[in-house]
């Protein structure tokens, strides 16, 4: 089975325009490590020397690893009734103040920017701000997530989309 929803929808209005502006507490501090940078670069087949040595930076898209932890907060929000396994990743963009470096202690804070509902399909735009625990802003990353709502609770396992 795909990763299951952590947010069990409890009735009421599912995600809608009124949730625009909702933000979640920062994720717990995550330490960017040399080992994780090396693993990530290897997975991309990227031998850029900036990702090696004693003071490496992280590949730019590494930010998504931490942003995904902030997504989990939204998926766990029972008021929204969203589930990761019904989400298709539509768009992703990053704007960097600086690269992530080994040793950075970072948190990610998610804000819902846009919600557009078209029948059972919900287009959800979110921004995740990534900053160090000292308050040094590192990156803003935006995503468009396309969530398809099942026709009923019984259909909740009838997956129509997957996270990319």
């Amino acid at each position, binding site marked *: 089975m795909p*990763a299951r929803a952590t947010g069990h929808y409890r009735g009421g209005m599912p995600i809608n325009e009124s949730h625009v502006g909702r933000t979640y507490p920062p994720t717990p501090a995550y330490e960017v490590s040399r080992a994780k940078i090396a693993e990530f670069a290897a997975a*991309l087949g990227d031998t850029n020397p*900036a990702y090696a040595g004693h003071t490496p930076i992280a590949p730019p898209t590494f930010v998504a690893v931490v942003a995904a932890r902030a997504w989990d907060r939204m998926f766990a929000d029972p008021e929204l009734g969203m589930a990761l396994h019904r989400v298709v990743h539509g768009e992703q*963009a990053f704007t960097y103040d600086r*690269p992530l470096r080994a040793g950075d202690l970072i948190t990610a804070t998610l804000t819902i920017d846009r919600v557009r509902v078209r029948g059972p399909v919900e287009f959800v735009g979110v921004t995740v701000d990534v900053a160090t625990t000292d308050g040094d802003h590192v990156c803003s990353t935006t995503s468009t997530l396309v969530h398809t709502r099942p026709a009923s609770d019984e259909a909740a396992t009838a997956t129509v989309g997957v996270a990319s």
Partner: protein
Amino acid sequence: MTGLPTVGAELPELTVRVDRATAVRYAGAATDFNPIHYSDRAASALGLPGVLAHGMWTMGAALRAVTDWVGDPARVRSYGVRFTKPVVIPATDEGTLVRVRGRVTAVSDGLVTVTLEATCGDDKVLGNAVAEVVW
């Protein structure tokens, strides 16, 4: 890279091979363990055409066309894509190939804008793929 590039300049083409091991490696590195990225059973249960590369892998791998070109990845100011088609990874030793081409589409105020095209076979796998680098 020293001289300012001109609009229309083409980046060296990049070809990246992705097989099932690549996807497993990325799952571990990114801690994204959705089984559609390694299990045929999970992928077919969802009606997918096969095991898919992580979209974020495709996005990250495609950016190498830019970072290989400029050298220092710290110069990347922004990068965005739309996920248009998935990269299907056959269960073979060869896997499949993602081909990335890039072209300079704007130069201004110390920023060079590169538009990328990423394809797998006949499929365009990324849309609106644009990176800005500091120059």
